């Protein structure tokens, strides 16, 4: 299967053994109606590591990320070609339940989106709908601790989640994702609305969560990608026939290699800030 891969990504992915792969994209193209947003992506997301997606705006990072938990199902015009598998199972197989997929592959969004409920219920909601039977107080505390938020909110668990600061809200959203104990956490620019201190806290958080979870993070912040991720995928967009721009994977490798010795000129230009 590896030799089907396009020349750009072959060098990088064949190093990972199958059982260490959490998510695998094979020749994935994503369309919105007739518009091809992402073209022919091959990519393996390794287990218990942080994989970063970087690239200029509009190259399809969010689009690809949202295919990993089937959130693009909500967009009526979206269509996925190729194969995305999660622990060897085809995510888009007929018998795959998208609800089950999303329970096992959680997501944190660019804009913090706590529910208009209490802090406690924000965490408990996901657990309840997933049939959690254990000690809820304990789960809430544990999740908030994992998200490094407990000390700040332990005295106001009954207050609205919306009354928190943006950085706290984002950590609350991470906590509620942790609470359902997914295997993978997808994060789409989780720090873009946060100040440097909150950003640092979320980054530390990712480091500590790595043991438990596989993480994929989209970021525009090159330093962030270099700091938090083990693997980095660089995407770019190119004008195709008819002038519409499609996104594609340029290079995927160990973060260290992407930043210090990129194989492609495009990658080199982008990570060194000489883009365009």
């Amino acid at each position, binding site marked *: 299967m590896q030799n089907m891969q396009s020349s750009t990504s072959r060098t990088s992915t064949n190093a990972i053994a199958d059982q260490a792969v959490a998510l695998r994209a094979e020749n994935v193209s994503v369309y919105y109606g007739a518009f091809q947003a992402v073209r022919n992506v091959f990519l393996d997301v390794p287990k218990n590591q942080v994989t970063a997606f970087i690239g200029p705006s509009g190259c399809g990072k969010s689009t690809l990320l949202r295919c990993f*938990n089937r*959130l693009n199902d*909500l967009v*009526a015009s979206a269509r996925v070609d190729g194969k995305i598998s999660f622990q060897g199972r085809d995510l888009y197989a007929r018998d795959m339940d998208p*609800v*089950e997929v*999303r*329970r*096992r592959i*959680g*997501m944190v*969004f660019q*804009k913090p*989106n*706590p*529910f*208009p*409920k*209490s802090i406690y219920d924000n965490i408990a*909601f*996901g657990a309840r*709908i*997933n049939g959690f039977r254990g000690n809820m107080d304990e789960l809430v505390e544990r999740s908030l601790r994992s998200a490094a938020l407990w000390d700040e909110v332990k005295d106001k668990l009954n207050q*609205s989640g*919306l*009354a928190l600061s943006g950085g706290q809200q984002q950590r609350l*959203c991470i906590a*509620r*994702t942790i609470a*359902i104990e997914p295997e993978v956490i997808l994060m789409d620019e989780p720090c873009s609305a946060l100040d440097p201190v909150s950003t640092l806290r979320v980054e530390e958080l990712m480091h500590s969560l790595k043991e438990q979870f596989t993480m994929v993070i989209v970021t525009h912040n090159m330093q962030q990608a270099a700091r938090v991720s083990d693997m980095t995928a660089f995407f770019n967009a190119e004008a195709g026939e008819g002038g519409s721009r499609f996104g594609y994977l340029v290079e995927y490798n160990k973060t260290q290699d992407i930043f210090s010795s990129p194989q492609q000129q495009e990658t080199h230009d982008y990570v060194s800030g000489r883009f365009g």
Partner: protein
Amino acid sequence: MAKFESLSVARWIDRGFYRLTAAFAVGIAGILVWILVTLFQTAYPAIAKFGLGFLFSSRWSVQEEIFGALPLIYGTVVSALVALAIAVPIGVGIAVFLTEDFLPAQIRTPIAFVIELLAAVPSVVYGLWAIVVFIPFVKPVLELVHQVLGWIPLFGSAPTNVGLMYTSLILAIMISPTIIAISRDSLVSLPPQLRQGALALGATRWETILKVLLPASLSGIVGAVMLALGRALGETMVAAMLIGSKNAISASLFAPGQTIASMIANQFGEATGLQRASLLYAGLILMLITLAVNVLAELIISRFQQVEH
């Protein structure tokens, strides 16, 4: 300098506009107080004679000049509550169907439009339509309910051509557009991130709707329900035409009854003296009930908003 002059003109207009709207606001509050005071004054003979006992007495005898409003209050409140019990689940349900993409947009938009048109139908037309079309149509259904569930006091009497239930059903149809339109607006205005956030946690579509979206728009929905309740309590024409004008309390919803509004509509033209004062007293009570509903609505809404913001 010319620039500053035009600025001061703008400020002057600003201030003038502020004063004008402030005057209107105070004026409206003044009218409310004025109505209450006038009602109280004109009703005073009845208030002095019957006191609060008026609320608990069931006799309404023009000959003996003894008046009590309990059946009217009962009919008003019960017919409105039954209407709500029917209209709220249906209305909120329709609002959900019109906002979540259960239906393609080409069908959704005309349906929403037609529903909002329902709000424009005059109540007397609803009354006529009920007498000519609706009651003959649903009466067999009510008869069936009475036969099967007649042992429940609520359905304990055989339906005739008038009754509280018909009033409630038509009221339900009349207030549904309000509930649908306002609930729909508050559902539509929810940020899409909320829905995505719930789905991304593995919630099903219905869990998302029932446990996240509806609670999040609760203040809007409660507001809609209270507005609808206010309308149902005060609706006169439909009650006067359909409820049967029988001054009695019956446990059965199929029995005829009377509401405050229908009583006033029926009797006020010929009423004099103490009867007239009693009708005004009843009107005062209706107004106080409606005011209480609205104050309650405000309280509930502001309580929910504390959690939402």
